[in-house]
């Protein structure tokens, strides 16, 4: 899922300064699960904005709404009336959600969250990055552990020899991805995979080749 983090209230106030009728729009999918932009966070942020507004005489009129998914037109349509009766939308969706709303309505749409990464809930209240969407998945080569995402140096032919114990040289709070890859391949009997030298990665399929599009011709009418 997509993991995001909240912006602070002073940041939001700064973004919204000068606006009057504000719709705080939540998303019921990824950002609800990572506790950043669901119905609950919409309520908390809206309350905090109202409090800030009263204390600083900003005259915000804040409305709250959460839709099932901000990146899908079927659900966005359910917010149409609320968007129309407000001056501006503060989206608590991910970057895709913010842009999906902005493309469909002639109103300013601001990002209320910082979208962080594609990841999973690793343990209670802790999300970790697992995929950078490089466009050409190599997970089968590495026992299901992504060196492109989880190795700080993105090494396809690791390890880098800089790790200490089982910790990453660049980030001591994270495990060395190559240590994990070695242990995993050993446990599933696929250590032989490490004997072949991998060719340099073609990053053309990644964001470096420009914004990407996926088209399924068989589903087009």
């Amino acid at each position, binding site marked *: 899922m997509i993991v995001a983090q909240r912006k602070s209230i002073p940041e939001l106030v700064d973004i919204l300064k000068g606006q009057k009728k504000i719709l705080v729009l939540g998303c019921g999918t990824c950002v609800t699960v990572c506790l950043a932009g669901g119905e609950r966070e919409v*309520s908390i942020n809206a309350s905090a904005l109202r*409090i800030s507004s009263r204390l600083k005489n900003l005259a915000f009129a804040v409305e709250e*709404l959460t839709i099932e998914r901000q990146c899908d037109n079927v659900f966005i349509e359910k917010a149409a009336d609320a968007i129309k009766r407000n001056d501006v939308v503060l989206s608590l969706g991910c970057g895709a959600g913010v842009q999906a709303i902005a493309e469909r309505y002639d109103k300013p749409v601001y990002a209320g969250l910082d979208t962080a990464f594609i990841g999973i809930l690793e343990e209670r209240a802790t999300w970790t990055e697992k995929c950078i969407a490089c466009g050409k998945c190599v997970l089968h080569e590495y026992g299901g552990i992504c060196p492109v995402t989880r190795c700080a140096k993105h090494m396809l032919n690791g390890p880098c020899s800089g790790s200490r114990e089982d910790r990453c040289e660049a980030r001591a709070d994270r495990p060395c991805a190559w240590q994990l890859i070695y242990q995993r391949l050993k446990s599933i009997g696929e250590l032989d995979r490490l004997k072949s030298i991998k060719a340099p990665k073609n990053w053309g399929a990644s964001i470096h080749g420009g914004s990407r599009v996926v088209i399924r011709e068989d589903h087009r009418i």
Partner: protein
Amino acid sequence: MSNESFEPLLIAFCCQYCSYSAADLAGSMRLQYPPNVRIIRTPCTGRLEVEFFMKAFERGADGILVAGCLEGGCHFTEGNLLARGRVGYTRKFLSESGLEEERIRMINISAAQARPFVDHIHEMLATLKNIGPSPLKNVNPSKNVEIRT
């Protein structure tokens, strides 16, 4: 309003397994505490959400006391630990919004601790008197539209 004449409105969310019983016991023991405390019984402090606290402040509460079981003694194992985190998170939002974070506090007491319960109420009220009235009091809430669908 001078702080001497100011009587704070304190909302006390009390867990029914501990502090609500302690408040009950305080009554049976004829222990006195000021009447400006509104006790709200909750099935567990783990039921309390950050938005409950924010709404209470938005509507003019001067302070909030969250009273849960002793740590390790929650009837639902960890509800009071969840509440501790949420109170901390609320404090962050309060200070970012411009309100004093000392306006919300969590305490842990058992059902037998009537006197400590009363002491905590007195302490919290003294803190609130020191801080002063909430600047959100007497503000017409209709100026701030709130619609939930």
